[in-house]
């Protein structure tokens, strides 16, 4: 899903035509085998519609484009279908393993771009996200000074040109949400405690991920340019992200040349390395039964299943159990693909609740994860499922800190 930065230079009509042809070409290998349907998280939290799942969503898009659907109701319906996707990549992974290897997510992503070009997308709630990204550089309508204040109070050193090569990229969710905020604070504390050299941007702006997944390539492009310029100016050599979404964006979605020479890591990879080098050590125990929820953008999108598990196993006292659905088969929390910002009517259940129940079934006391959105969805799922007495959601950095 490489982003083409010259998109803005094309004329609008040609741009739309190119997008359409790209989608039709990508989808020409889909054979409607439907293997991807049961892999889709939506398939188990809806009432039986088959326009879900990678093939359901993309066949809807395919015929809408082929038939040049212009009806208001039909386009609105297509919008709901395309934006229901969490981009968890379960469909595409299944397709690669069991069918023709169609790049379903690319088609969905481009389909969203088409809807935005046609002024049909995104979902109304997501429009506010895009406006906020343009206005404040974050998706949460958080004004710049509030965010900077939050970042100042985090207790992390400011990244200066000469100070360090490592940029810790906090992302937008932590300053906005208490659970994710706790996660960022834990990471900062543990890095400080271990005396690791790093810095943050107090005036950090979004990586652009929400704009990209929602389908606004122009906003994404604009954000990307600003970030790239800053990375170069402040001589960033390594970016360590709190969120797997930022990690994926810098690693895979920014133009390759622009970030040449910069290593992009998720914090679990960075910390795991530090643990192995014995620069982070444990002095306490965590006597708990812990499972790990794979964030989609760390796991399926980037194949990182090992680092988080190695960290958990290295914490003294942790009794690690796997979810029945884990790694490549892990169930999404429901927060990806722009879905943090919108509810879809056809859903009858929340994935966070399903995951909470699954944790209960395997006897886990803690669901560890490594993503600000996952921690929010899982915490919410545990609460609404009434399981707060039995299981809690914790980010890996919180668990590390409590055993240091």
């Amino acid at each position, binding site marked *: 899903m490489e982003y083409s930065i010259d998109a803005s230079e094309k004329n609008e009509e040609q741009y739309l035509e190119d997008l359409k042809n790209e989608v039709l070409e990508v989808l*020409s*290998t889909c*054979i*409607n*085998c*439907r*293997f991807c*349907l*049961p892999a889709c998280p939506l398939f188990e939290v809806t*009432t*039986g*519609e*088959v*326009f879900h799942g990678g093939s*359901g969503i993309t*066949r*809807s898009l395919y*015929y*809408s484009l*082929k*038939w040049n*659907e212009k*009806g208001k109701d*039909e386009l609105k*319906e*297509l919008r709901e*279908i395309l934006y229901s996707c969490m981009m968890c990549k379960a469909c595409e992974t299944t*397709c*690669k*393993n*069991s*069918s*023709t*290897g169609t790049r379903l997510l690319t088609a969905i992503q481009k389909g969203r771009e088409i809807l935005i070009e046609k002024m049909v997308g995104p979902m109304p709630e997501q429009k506010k996200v895009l406006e906020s990204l343009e206005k404040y550089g974050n998706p949460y309508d958080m004004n710049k000074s509030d965010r900077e204040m939050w970042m100042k109070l985090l207790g992390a050193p400011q990244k200066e040109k000469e100070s360090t090569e490592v940029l810790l990229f906090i992302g937008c969710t932590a300053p906005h949400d208490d659970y994710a905020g706790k996660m960022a604070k834990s990471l900062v504390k543990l890095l400080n405690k271990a005396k690791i050299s790093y810095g943050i941007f107090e005036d950090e702006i979004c990586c652009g991920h929400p704009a990209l997944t929602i389908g606004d390539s122009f906003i994404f492009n604009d954000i990307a340019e600003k970030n790239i310029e800053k990375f170069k100016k402040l001589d960033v050599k390594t970016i360590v992200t709190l969120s797997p979404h930022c990690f994926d964006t810098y690693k895979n979605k920014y133009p390759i040349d622009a970030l040449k020479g910069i290593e992009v890591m998720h914090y679990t990879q960075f910390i795991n390395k530090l643990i192995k080098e014995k620069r982070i050590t444990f002095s306490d125990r965590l006597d708990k039964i812990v499972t790990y929820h794979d964030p989609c953008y760390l796991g399926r999108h980037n194949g990182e299943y090992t680092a988080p598990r190695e960290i958990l196993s290295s914490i003294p006292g942790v009794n690690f159990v796997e979810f029945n659905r884990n790694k490549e088969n892990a169930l999404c929390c429901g927060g990806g693909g722009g879905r943090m910002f919108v509810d879809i009517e056809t859903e009858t259940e929340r994935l966070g609740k399903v995951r909470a129940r699954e944790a209960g079934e395997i006897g886990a006391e803690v669901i560890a994860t490594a993503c600000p959105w996952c921690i929010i969805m899982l915490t919410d799922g545990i609460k609404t499922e009434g399981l707060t007495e039995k299981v809690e959601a914790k980010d890996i950095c919180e668990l590390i800190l409590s055993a240091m």
Partner: protein
Amino acid sequence: MTDYKKYEDDAVYGDLVRLLDKKKVTKSLYERINNSLDPYMAGNELKKGEIPYAVVRPENTEEVSTVMKYANEKSIPAYVRGSGTSLHGAARFKEKGIVINVRNLNHLEIEEEYGWAEFGPGHRVLYVKEALEKRGFFLPLVPGSIRIASIGGIISNNTSAHGVDTELGKPRDYVLGLEVVLPTGEIVKTGTKSLRRIAGTDLTQYFVGGDGLMGIITSIRMQLMPMFESTYGVAYFKDLDSLARAVQRIYLDKVPPPMFLEMLDERVAKIAFKIKGLQEPKGPMIMFQVKGRDKEDAKKKVTQLVECIKKESPIEAKEIQDMEEWHKIWSARESSLPYICQGGKGVFAFCEVVSTVPGLVECMKDVKNMSKGKPTLEKLGEPYLFGHIGCLTYHPCFIIPADWSEEDKRKAYEEVFAKEAELNLKYDTAGGEWGQFAMRGPFFSEKWGESGYDFVEKIKTAVDPKNILNPNVMRKTVLENK
């Protein structure tokens, strides 16, 4: 072809909403599109406007009956769908009509004391399989599409895919009774609650393997099969002839047949093994799973099989004890089709050529040469070859480039099915997986004669006088260019 009265979409939708709860009926454009598609038919795209009036999702037998009574009264075609994974268009919407999606017919009761389980047709096979395994039973339904295929279609087709018929039997051997809605809307309950099978006329048998022509199955009662012990084996050969001879020998030497016995030709095996991180296969190969009452029984059987296969001088034949190795080999087989698709950057066209035991070696050659004399297939060369050779089935597979025109793709499919018919007629066989109509009308007439075809048509007319249930599944052309 029956001429059906045409209605406005909204009129039919309005009627259905009055008959069923609104949430069980949809006129969503995209839900109607998705309920009109199935795999394989890449050469037969939907045309604008050619979508059903509405899709209904009934939750019980009575609601199915209500819809069918309405459809019959108005002479509106009804198409029944579960997951829509039929590989030859059996569940495909063709005439303007109503699609009945049975996904929400999903009850499941396991009655261990009686020795059977009863379930709805809308369940995915894997879901029921896992539910039964938790209670110590095996579900003898083994389609390649186990993750997504729904049970109603498996029973309507009486399909057995991997399962070796002489060992595992067919689904019909396990079905004790059904609940069925006839095309005219009446409800019929067949079979008994006993494990004792009915002699003489057993209504169940009109519907199991009935190609979905005679009624809509809304509930299935199936005998429970206790879980067993398994052993596994693999053999590599210097050529396909000796591979086929080894399988012949299993039948002729009266050794216990395996439950599954699959083959990959060398080209397919090399691709699949490489992706699975296995050592390069030494040649074309077979893999097999054997079931036994206990470990000792299963071990004894696999040893007998390996010894039998060795008589045909394979490069290697052995039992596999390392389960990780077995899983890798089995998943290489399972994923072989997508892997060759991905390599070839196209969509697949394949069919089932079934052999007799004596014909197995010659049939293999015929299958490898099947593109000869077929102008479109000749452009694609020799087919990739894999299959359920233990149950005498070859799946020759062509990869059609994704950028071929719809017309060329369609021609390729036609030629594949024409050749399948030719070879199955030569060996006096018929497909054991995909049902006998849909793409196979011409074959049916050739194989069992016009009188055979008329016989089925007469029964269909008696049961479905207005020809509304899955019409056009019985048709005399391979593909319809709609």
